């Protein structure tokens, strides 16, 4: 196992995205603050459209994915996301959806700048600093279904290729299998968490209904102490309704969104493996071509056609150079993919830990609230006579 060289990122780059304001269309204002010398000033704010984010991804992906980099993907345009399960009555303008998208874009941008190589990319700098961004074109491909299709196509061709490539380094094969297995599990989990969010929302509504009916029951009860206790119970159930609602939000924002992010990211990981395959394929193709050229030269020698011989020799030289180049490319991309995967895994561990702690703490808070409510209720119940 080789040791990864730790590059201590001793810089500050705080990005946050605030709520959108509708100026023609949704604009996002991102106040940045940084200590990095490469930026013009220490704090700045810019406005970006949603399509700008997609445009940034496209640019970065075009440039860096072929080299084996894992480029973080932005959130989908459509609300369906990846589960295609409609949970409740949500539409594009609902407050929840807006907040979800804002947070997703924030995480996206944070991932981009946290990537040491991507941070150096001038497009990223431009995105962060430039006052007026020209509209990004061709982002249709990146919205919703189109984006998913693209990812799926990449993974399809990938699975076809794995059979053919004879892997000299078994690490890649194993890693890819891990990634694919994890992708499946995360998708499964995501569907379950979405279902949970839906059921919790339902529970919240039904608890509210129950609270009202208990209140009604209490008001018709003619024993005063019991009547009071019942109305207290109604209040407790009312608070539970609120708690369930908050918990559903936490399930969604902490848990479901985390899973969605990583399902998208795993898509990018597979894309980088795919790229490595492509460079390997290109190298193999070049070797085959070289072989053909050598055969051509041999045939010409035998047929004694000296005029075409020079061409053949030139071809061989050309393809020899290409073979060398493509082999170097393959090695370079392989090294990059390897480094990227390790970096990704470290980041993932951090991310998951942070979010799981956050989620557990939200559950913890719920329980504390519960205790408070029931402790207040208990003496009322005991006072019934």
């Amino acid at each position, binding site marked *: 196992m080789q040791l990864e060289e730790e590059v201590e990122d001793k810089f500050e780059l705080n990005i946050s995205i605030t709520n959108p304001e509708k100026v023609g269309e949704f604009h996002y204002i991102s106040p940045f603050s940084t200590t990095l010398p490469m930026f013009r000033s220490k704090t700045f704010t810019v406005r970006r459209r949603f399509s700008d984010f997609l445009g940034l991804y496209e640019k970065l992906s075009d440039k860096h994915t072929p080299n084996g980099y894992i480029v973080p993907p932005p959130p989908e345009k459509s609300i369906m996301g990846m589960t295609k399960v409609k949970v409740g009555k949500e539409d594009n303008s609902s407050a929840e959806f807006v907040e979800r998208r804002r947070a997703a874009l924030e995480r996206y941008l944070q991932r981009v700048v946290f990537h040491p190589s991507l941070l150096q990319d001038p497009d990223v700098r431009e995105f962060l600093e430039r006052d007026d961004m020209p509209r990004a074109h061709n982002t249709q491909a990146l919205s919703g279904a189109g984006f998913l299709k693209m990812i799926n196509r990449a993974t399809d061709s990938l699975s076809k290729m794995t059979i053919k490539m004879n892997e000299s380094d078994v690490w890649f094969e194993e890693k890819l299998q891990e990634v694919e*297995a*994890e992708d499946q*599990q995360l998708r*499964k*989990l995501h569907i*379950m*968490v979405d*279902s*949970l969010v839906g*059921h*919790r929302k*339902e*529970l919240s*509504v*039904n*608890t509210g*209904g*129950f609270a*009202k*009916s*208990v209140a*009604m*029951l209490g008001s*018709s*009860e*003619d*024993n005063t*102490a*019991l009547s009071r*206790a*019942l109305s207290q*119970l109604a209040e407790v159930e009312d608070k539970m309704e609120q708690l369930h609602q908050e918990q559903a939000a936490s399930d969604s924002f902490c848990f479901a969104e985390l899973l969605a992010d990583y399902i998208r990211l795993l898509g990018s990981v597979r894309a980088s493996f795919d790229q490595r395959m492509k460079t390997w394929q290109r190298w193999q193709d070049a070797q085959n071509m070289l072989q053909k050229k050598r055969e051509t030269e041999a045939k010409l020698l035998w047929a004694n056609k000296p005029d075409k011989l020079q061409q053949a020799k030139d071809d061989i030289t050309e393809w020899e150079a290409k073979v060398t180049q493509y082999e170097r490319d393959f090695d370079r991309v392989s090294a990059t993919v390897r480094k990227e995967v390790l970096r990704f*895994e470290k980041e*993932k*561990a951090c991310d*998951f*830990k942070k979010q*799981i*702690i956050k*989620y*557990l*703490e939200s*559950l*913890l808070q719920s*329980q*504390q609230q*519960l*205790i408070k409510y*029931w*402790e207040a*209720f*208990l003496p009322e*119940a*005991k006072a*019934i*006579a």
Partner: protein
Amino acid sequence: MGSIAAQLFSGLSRDIKSGSSLGSVNVDLQTDATLQVDISDALSERDKVKFTVHTKSTLPNFKQNEFSVVRQHEEFIWLHDSFVENEEYAGYIIPPAPPRPDFDASREKLQKLGEGEGSMTKEEFTKMKQELEAEYLAIFKKTVAMHEVFLCRVAAHPVLRKDMNFHVFLEYNQDLSVRGKNKREKMEDFFKNVVKSADGVLVAGVKDVDDFFEHEKTFLLEYHNRVKDASSKSDRMIRSHKNAADDINRIASTLYTLGTQDSTDVCKYFLLVSLPLQKIEARVAADEDLKLADLLKYYLRESQAAKDLLYRRGRALVDYENANKALDKARAKNKDVLQAETSQQVCCQKFEKISESAKQELIDFKTRRVAAFRKNLVELAELELKHAKGNLQLLQSCVGVLKGDT
């Protein structure tokens, strides 16, 4: 389906000591030594449940001091109906009949499980099977408790406990040959109920001279409706809670699977978070909600029985008033006076007899109700607290481990 069904549906006998919901509805019933009844055992067979009714008595009517018989649900219904149809008991609140044991939902799920056996892993299958068994057991315990409460209420009632049919029910160790109602009888019942409720509306419209009963009438009508509403809303709430709990269980299992795949950090986190999740929601959905739900359902039936008593009294009052009018008419015409007088006396006696006992019955009903709600609400709050505190501890330790692990 066959093998699992055979396992689940046969030979499941009740674990007597494990907390049945009996406690929540059976309050204030003095267990007095002259007559003690309980259900000491129960067996679930393919289609039916067989209850072992165990009696301890010092009363001279019985041949022995302690004895047991086996009874099925239909025989309980027969006993209940015989009380309702007995004119002598018109002035009492007849303890509501226990609901029919209903394992249909469980049966359906079991079938689905059997069908899906091939498509899930061994762990998933075992887990689901365990869940189903637990659910089945819970329903089983509840139906036993409901049947037991009915018998205890009868045994505790100063008049009903002396009923002949009741004694036969307790003692006769053969099948009572009470068949369930056939279609025609069920239709008759249906029409009888329609007529009764129409009549009930009529009778209820008659204002009562007695303030106590007038107040009770208004009170019970409103109370009954509100209990019905609360009961159905609580059922709905419990269903959602169960759905959420099922989701959480599935999530916890998946996390556990993910976590045991290898020993990376992320897997450790998954394992850690799956533990509290598994504990938290499942129990809550089962225990607390059911307490409240069972209580509401029971008082729905009790308040209906109280309403029935008021109806009978109201009916008797109307009959009495009609008999008075008929007597006046007869005296005016001087025709059939003796007949009218007798009829009026009968009605008067009937009405007064009912009124006398009804008042006490309704007061007792109130006392019982208040006590049952108190007990139940206290237990509910205590259970919620116990679980919340346990969950809190578990969550705190998980968070502690995660935060400490750098």
